């Protein structure tokens, strides 16, 4: 447990020292969403119709941008190798890193979401659904994304390859999240959609740490 | 035969463009895959032959150099 606490503390300390790097995906998130009212016109009905989709696509893209941070610096300065050869379970350590990454990089996106819901004229019911889907769905992005980041950490130009690998995998999440918010817009129940996203989260929580650990061992072999 | 004439066969009841486009692309893609695999194999095997010939030449050159040195030593 002390190892996990130490790792978490280290991750937060590093994140705090790299505040400006953390801000970049956040600003990207806001800018991309702001592009849509400019592109399709400011009519509230249109924006409300495309709103959930736009916010979720922007969230996925910004997360993809921020995911590389997870292992890149540690790979380059050797601390990733130290994690591998430590006697702790690598799956547990990777889960800790994913948690730290989610809290530092992706929770700010969720914190900003009310503002962006306002930009896109989402109603209050829609916003609650959006918040629920973001809270349940973004950890899936972090967990599954970490697998791909672990595989590509040693490559020099992994950025676009990461997106190419992960976008097909995130499509079901996108579909269920946006249809949950759309159902909320029509005053229909959306607990079913949330249950499916929660199921994806549980599956990812159970399997991803092992896959991430294996991916890291492959990359550092 | 379901068709009365060759022309009817090619026309496919008005849908000729789509049917022949599909069949053509499907069969062409399989042919391309086969062709590229077969060419790769031929090229890889030829690569081995070329490399072996090169090794032979190197070995022969080395032997010739050794014999020459041997003769020089005998003369000296």
């Amino acid at each position: 447990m002390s190892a996990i606490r130490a790792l978490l503390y280290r991750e937060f300390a590093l994140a705090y020292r790299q505040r400006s790097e953390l801000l970049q995906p956040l600003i990207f998130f806001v800018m991309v969403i702001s592009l849509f009212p400019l592109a399709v016109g400011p009519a509230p009905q249109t924006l409300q119709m495309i709103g959930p989709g736009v916010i979720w696509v922007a969230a996925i893209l910004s997360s993809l941008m921020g995911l590389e941070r997870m292992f890149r610096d540690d790979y380059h300065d050797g601390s990733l190798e130290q994690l591998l050869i430590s006697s702790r379970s690598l799956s547990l350590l990777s889960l800790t890193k994913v948690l730290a990454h989610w809290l530092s990089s992706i929770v700010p996106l969720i914190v900003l979401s009310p503002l962006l819901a306002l930009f896109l004229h989402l109603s209050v019911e829609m916003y609650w659904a959006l918040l629920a889907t973001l809270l349940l769905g973004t950890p899936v992005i972090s967990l599954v994304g970490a697998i791909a980041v672990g595989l590509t950490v040693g490559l020099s130009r992994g950025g676009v390859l990461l997106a190419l690998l992960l976008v097909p995998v995130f499509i079901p999440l996108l579909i269920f999240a946006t249809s949950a918010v759309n159902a909320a817009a029509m005053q229909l129940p959306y607990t079913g959609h949330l249950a499916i996203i929660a199921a994806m989260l549980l599956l990812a929580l159970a399997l991803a740490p092992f896959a991430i650990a294996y991916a890291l061992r492959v990359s550092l072999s | 035969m379901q068709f009365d004439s060759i022309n009817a066969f090619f026309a496919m009841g008005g849908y000729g463009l789509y049917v022949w486009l599909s069949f053509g692309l499907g069969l062409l893609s399989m042919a391309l895959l086969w062709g590229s695999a077969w060419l790769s194999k031929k090229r890889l095997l030829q690569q081995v032959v070329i490399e072996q010939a090169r090794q032979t030449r190197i070995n022969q050159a080395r032997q010739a150099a050794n014999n020459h040195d041997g003769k020089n030593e005998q003369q000296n």
Partner: protein
Amino acid sequence: MWKWLHPYAKTERCYALCQRLLPWFSVLGLVSLVIGCVWGLAFAPSDYQQGDSYRIIFIHVPSAILSKAMYSGMAAAAFIGLVWQVKTAFMAMIAMAPIGAMVTFVSLITGAAWGKPMWGTWWEWDARLTSQLILLFLFLGVIALYKSFNDVQQAGKAAGVMALVGIINLPIIHYSVEWWNTLHQGATILKMGKPSMPPDMLQPLLFCIVSWMLVCAAIFLLALQNEILRRDIRRPWVIHLVKGKNIGTAQLGSTSRGQI
């Protein structure tokens, strides 16, 4: 129980097996493909609803089935490679990937060509079309990941992990897109009645499916042989093999002195 498979973990035995199977699969595949196409195009009866355009089914359905079969095969090979550390399994996986991608592409194109006269549009976000498109992206992702590594062992393992992540995701994708499509129902509801097919349409279809499988298996055997050769090109058994074949002794030029 699986001991008879163990020798094929060795590249030399694997290559020999492919060499023995190749003539059977390629000849049978080509002959059955020709028979199947002629049967479907000329001898199967016309559909009363769709006329002669339904004949695209004899290319479309086999390629769709094969695309999913290829991905499953690729994932199975990846699993075997990752769990039992069998190198030839990774070679098989990467040999299947381009074939699977091409077959998926064919299914998309033939689907679009069939959709145009039937639905009036080249593209529709139908559940199956969308799943096929995502399958194509998954194939391309595995190939791209494999090619970005310099070390071939690392590449195999990384691409294997990605193939397995994709296979877990594939049923999720399929059902999510199906539910999404019914949520956004608005597409035309034309019955492409597959279960309720009369036997004289069903038989050529099944025949075409089998013939496509044979053709793709033949191409896979060739591709696997190529991958084995690429990795083992300097090894003695390959040199011995080439000498036995006596390929292109004319290539040796003036320096040949009966050494080869």
